């Protein structure tokens, strides 16, 4: 560009020289000749500009000029630039961070070959399935998997599961757990993955009764083996068995569960081989644990494949119906159909659990961004008024309005671009913080938060949108000035049109409305958090520790297991400082549950559903659940007793006419594939307590005496201790080691379990109040600016009023009345907005209505207080105006 400019300048100079020389040779005196020639040549600048026009690209030059100009201007007014960039950085950063997390859990496809061609093959509805469910995702039983892969022709299928695949690598003592997955032979091949080292599993590795081989996850290989290049051939001990490592999966691949990373993949056949009984779940028709995926075979369309799956379903489930299936569910089992849904994004519990909170937070963050933009628009309008003389001069000197608008917009764009660049950095940090906040004890989240084209595109879009939002109106408004009137006026800003003032008021009203809505939202979530935090789980969580004790390495024969169990419990109970210990089969709040239908004996019509648990003597005392009536299970209750006894909760007892009436009553339980129909005798009633989640309403619950049931090789002890949790766990680990070093144990702290369950409430409350406060602060800045401006603009008027006898109180009222009107309109609009937005959040609230009047009143009151505080300072300044000075300025 500049090269061509230089050329033209040289060319014109040579033109001038030649013209002068010609004139001199015609006899003109040299000085006159030069002057004539120059006059003839005309305006060199104009010629250059016209020539540049020919080549185009003039706008680039202008843009660079504008950027230079804007930079110089910002350096002169660093305060404005800093406030503007900071508020944009916060607004865009928060919005982009949320988008980054959403993109990672929701939008990004799995890092596999052709993710769009991967389908999840699942039951259209899980309604007909009964039995044990060990995954949060849709599953089938292993017999269904075998039958399905034999009958269907449309897909290359594979199955996988993370159920019961947490392996303990320790030789005893406290466990070191790794996440495993079971995969069928076609897993890696169908996904189109290539090994990072060695080889991946193939169908040949997955044969019934196989000698298991393992593929490591890339991260685990790095962590546990230091990335040993000769990893293939090394051995890994899983459940007491030596397993050969054959290779390492590619680095980007974390499994099909987004957010949960696998450490080791074992062939499906290994599940049976590694199980205690050597059979595993291979032939269980009521253990639902396998997730099925596949790719279409050549020549198949997804529509044809779906109808193919539907067509083979009825006959398949007829063949598969397990013996002893609960009668009420047989019909639904036979009516089940398989279907295919797109599976290229994998499965994600994060996605299921946090999709709506994340979108809601994104919406909240965008509103904060809108408030920030409104603020900037307001600041720019104020600046435009302050600069109207400069603009008028430039217009008067012949700059076109378009050119000045372009220059003002360049300033806005420069602000937006700088803010966005910083925001992308901030977003990375915020995003990692958010993911860390969602993590719970023992379940790390592996979520690659990449700044990819989606995120960058999103941020760029925000930058342009915000720039237009806050820059365009002030630019249009600022250039619509009458040069003559501005230059004649003496007070800066005095000529600003009534329209500009009205526009600035409207912007502040918008800010107040949005802030009220955001504050309302944060109050709703804060109340929700308080409600869940103050919930009474029905037991005393403080000081409770759950110890999962695994004695399977001892390979005890079944008949000596009961004695061993007693020994372990006695040993733990004898630890000084422990208030008590009792066994429990389903740890409250652990998420697992067991339930069946029961009815009072001989009255099947009064059937109801109940939760079930198996506890040892003293469990209720340890947990802190008081008895209402009757007795605890104790040493009297043995397998040989005449009656199988149960303790029930109050809700259960209420179905039988209350606690007193329930004692001694007998209840029957429906038959299920594991057990025939049975009758139990109620010996005690306890208060209701939480079972699966603190937030759940109380549910009928029935507690069996663990001593009357068969004994496995693992034991879960509920321990109450007055010691700190760490001291309790190390004391238990030590006590178990004195018994046998091969016993392994894993701990959960009950208060931590409760805290983990409330992650969503915690994050929503923290983020929404953060955003609410940010919104309020931005609004205060906007309001302060407006009032200060309006006081400055009306200083003459105020001076006149004071000269005519107005008191300071009168003036204060005059200024505050203006604020009051804005506040009233803004708050009213905010209430409407809040109430309609509250409905969207209803499902995330707990024991708070989305129309909660207290929260609404709180939001309006908070806004009113900060608004008055923000306007008080400039209003005070108005009362200090000296009438004489104000009038002299005219």
């Amino acid at each position: 560009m500049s090269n061509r400019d230089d050329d033209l300048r040289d060319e014109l100079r040579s033109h001038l020289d030649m013209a002068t020389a010609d004139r001199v040779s015609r006899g003109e005196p040299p000085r006159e000749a030069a002057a004539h020639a120059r006059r003839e040549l005309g305006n060199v600048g104009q010629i250059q500009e016209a020539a540049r026009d020919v080549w185009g690209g003039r706008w680039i030059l202008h843009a660079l000029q504008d950027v230079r100009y804007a930079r110089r201007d910002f350096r002169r007014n660093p305060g404005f630039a800093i406030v503007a960039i900071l508020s944009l950085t916060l607004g865009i950063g928060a919005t982009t961070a949320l988008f980054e997390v959403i993109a990672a859990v929701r939008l990004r496809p799995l890092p596999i070959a052709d993710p769009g061609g991967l389908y999840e093959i699942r039951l259209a509805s899980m309604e007909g399935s009964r039995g044990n469910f060990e995954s949060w995702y849709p599953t089938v039983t292993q017999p269904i998997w075998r039958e399905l892969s034999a009958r269907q022709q449309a897909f290359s299928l594979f199955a996988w599961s993370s159920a019961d695949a947490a392996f303990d690598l320790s030789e005893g003592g406290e466990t070191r757990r790794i996440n495993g997955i079971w995969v069928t032979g076609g897993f890696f091949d169908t996904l189109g993955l290539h090994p990072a080292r060695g080889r991946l599993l193939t169908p040949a590795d997955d044969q019934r009764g196989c000698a298991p081989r393992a593929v490591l996850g890339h991260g685990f290989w790095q962590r546990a083996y230091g990335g040993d290049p000769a990893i293939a051939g090394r051995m890994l001990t899983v459940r007491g068995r030596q397993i050969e490592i054959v290779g390492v999966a590619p680095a980007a691949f974390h499994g099909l569960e987004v957010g949960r990373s696998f450490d080791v993949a074992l062939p499906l056949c290994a599940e049976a081989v590694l199980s205690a009984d050597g059979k595993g779940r291979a032939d269980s028709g009521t253990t639902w644990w396998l997730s099925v995926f596949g790719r279409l075979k050549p020549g198949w369309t997804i529509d044809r494949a779906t109808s193919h799956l539907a067509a083979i379903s009825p006959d398949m489930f007829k063949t598969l119906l397990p013996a002893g299936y609960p009668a009420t569910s047989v019909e639904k089992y036979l009516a089940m159909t398989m279907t295919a849904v797109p599976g290229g994004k994998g499965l994600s519990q994060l996605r299921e659990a946090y999709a709506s909170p994340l979108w809601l937070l994104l919406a909240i963050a965008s509103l904060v961004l809108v408030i920030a933009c409104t603020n900037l628009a307001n600041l720019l309008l104020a600046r435009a008024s302050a600069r109207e003389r400069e603009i008028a001069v430039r217009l008067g000197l012949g700059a076109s309005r378009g050119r000045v608008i372009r220059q003002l917009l360049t300033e806005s764009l420069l602000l937006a671009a700088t803010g966005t660049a910083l925001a992308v950095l901030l977003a990375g940090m915020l995003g990692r913080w958010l993911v860390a906040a969602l993590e719970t004890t023992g379940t790390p989240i592996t979520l690659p938060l990449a700044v990819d084209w989606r995120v960058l595109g999103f941020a760029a879009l925000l930058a342009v949108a915000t720039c237009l939002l806050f820059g365009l109106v002030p630019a249009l408004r600022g250039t619509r000035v009458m040069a003559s009137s501005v230059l004649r006026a003496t007070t800066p800003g005095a000529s600003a049109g009534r329209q500009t003032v009205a526009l600035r008021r409207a912007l502040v009203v918008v800010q107040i409305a949005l802030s009220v809505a955001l504050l309302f939202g944060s109050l709703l979530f804060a109340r929700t958090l308080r409600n869940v935090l103050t919930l009474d789980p029905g037991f005393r969580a403080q000081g409770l520790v759950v110890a999962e004790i695994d004695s399977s390495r001892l390979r005890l024969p079944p008949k000596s297991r009961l004695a061993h169990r007693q020994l372990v419990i006695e040993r733990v109970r004898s630890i000084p400082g422990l208030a008590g210990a009792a066994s429990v089969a389903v740890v409250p709040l652990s998420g697992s549950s067991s339930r069946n239908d029961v009815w009072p004996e001989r009255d099947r019509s009064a059937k109801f559903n109940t939760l079930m648990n198996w506890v040892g003597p003293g469990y209720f005392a340890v947990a802190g659940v008081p008895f209402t009536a009757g007795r605890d299970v104790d040493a009297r209750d043995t397998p040989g007793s005449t009656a199988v006894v149960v303790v029930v909760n109050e809700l259960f007892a209420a179905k039988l006419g209350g606690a007193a009436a329930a004692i001694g009553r007998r209840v029957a339980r429906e038959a299920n594939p594991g057990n025939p129909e049975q009758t139990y005798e109620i010996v005690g009633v306890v208060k209701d307590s939480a079972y699966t989640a603190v937030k759940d309403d109380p549910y009928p619950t029935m507690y069996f005496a663990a001593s009357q049931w068969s004994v496995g090789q693992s034991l879960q002890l509920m321990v109450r201790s007055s010691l700190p949790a760490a001291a309790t766990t190390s004391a238990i680990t030590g006590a178990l080691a004195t018994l046998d070093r091969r016993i392994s144990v894993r701990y959960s702290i009950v208060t931590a379990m409760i805290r983990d369950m409330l992650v969503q409430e915690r994050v929503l409350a923290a983020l929404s109040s953060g955003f609410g406060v940010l919104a309020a602060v931005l609004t205060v800045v906007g309001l302060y600016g407006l009032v200060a401006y309006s006081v400055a603009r009306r200083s003459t008027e105020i001076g006149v009023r004071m000269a005519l006898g107005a008191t300071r109180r009168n003036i204060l009222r005059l200024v505050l009345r203006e604020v009051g009107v804005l506040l009233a309109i803004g708050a009213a609009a905010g209430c409407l907005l809040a109430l309609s937005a509250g409905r969207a959040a209803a499902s995330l609230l707990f024991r708070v209505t989305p129309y909660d009047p207290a929260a609404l009143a709180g939001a309006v009151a908070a806004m009113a207080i900060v608004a008055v505080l923000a306007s008080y300072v400039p209003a005070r300044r108005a009362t200090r105006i000296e009438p004489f000075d104000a009038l002299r300025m005219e």
Partner: protein
Amino acid sequence: MPRRRDRYQNRIELLQGTLDLLILQTLQWGPRHGYGIAVAIQANSSDALQVDTGSLYPALHRLEKQKWIAATWELSPNKQRTRVYRLTAAGRRQLASERSRWQALVDAMSRILSRPQETE
């Protein structure tokens, strides 16, 4: 300087076709620098046409962009660096077609202008 520039551009547009044709025609006899072209046009029209430098150079750049003429820096006999323009093959074709269009226009104009005035 919006207003003045607008007027200036209008003038270029008015002259555009003819000035371009004149430049191409002048270069038909051999390479010349900008000043030389201006002098030649003035001389060949017996001083009837005065070429405005403000239009000449933008027009030269326009023709160069269209690749109808090409420019090189050369040293003049008195050792001065000058930018010399030359007609390209495409320029030659353009000249031919411009000329025939111009001829058609002149014919049409003269037919209209030489018609006897009709009386009312």
